């Protein structure tokens, strides 16, 4: 009789929840989702350029994701105003520019046009129209 009582006590202690601190796995316990943005397809307004000797300050208005927030960066391009040939953009307008203006230093003599393209990582938005002519004199 004592043995049976002992057996029952031990069984209860081991099996009843709330006793001890055994971890339990509850399998899949919820779901959710992560969504991503997209860059608005509207082309940005044409940038403006201001010359100071061989430095050109390029400014433009912010572009947005489809949800209305600003895109994190822009690609600035410079074209020959006569031939439309794409030039290599110089520091500090090269690469992804994380602002709405930049100063391109040591721009060669010539007549140039600028564009900006919204960027987020490797995503690209629509390239803007070309700026007015920017003339860099000797």
């Amino acid at each position, binding site marked *: 009789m004592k043995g049976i009582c002992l057996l029952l006590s031990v069984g209860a202690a081991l099996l009843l929840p709330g006793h001890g601190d055994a971890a339990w*796995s509850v399998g*899949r316990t919820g779901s959710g989702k992560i969504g*991503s943005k997209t860059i608005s397809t509207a082309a940005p307004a044409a940038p403006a350029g201001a010359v100071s000797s061989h430095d050109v300050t390029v400014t433009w208005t912010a572009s947005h994701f489809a949800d209305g927030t600003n895109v994190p960066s822009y690609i600035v391009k410079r074209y020959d105003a006569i031939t439309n040939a794409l030039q290599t953009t110089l520091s500090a307008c090269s690469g992804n520019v994380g602002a709405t203006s930049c100063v391109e230093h040591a721009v060669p003599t010539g007549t140039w046009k600028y564009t900006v393209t919204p960027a987020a990582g490797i995503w690209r938005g629509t390239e803007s129209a070309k700026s007015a002519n920017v003339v860099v004199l000797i």
Partner: protein
Amino acid sequence: MRLLSAVAALALAALLVVALAQSGAPGKAGPRVRPALRVTGGLRSLYPGVRKRLPLVVWSNRGFRIRVVSLTVRVGNARRGCGRKYLRVGRFRRRLVVAPHGFRTVDLPVTMLPGAPDACKRATFPLRFTVRGRKA
């Protein structure tokens, strides 16, 4: 004596059934019960290269404090060309105790890799949460 033994065996069997039912162990036979912990959460503002916090809420429906011992997030593919490989979700590392019938918030770092292609624009990655707890 045999009768007592049979009664004892039956009682143990009953205890086993109750224990299994309340443990919430998946895949086991027995009455279906709600999991002790539930996780909800999400985010909808990622783009390549950005690092954000994924806010999660851990809910308890038990009448005692539960210490969360693990919380994992499984990311599914968003769509063709935009697989889960473009998303990184950090690990749950902190100590977290959920009050009886309460909830706690926790956030995990999440990053969309800079190389995420255009297929990942306006995409939705499904998440599956798995949480393990221990009575605190």
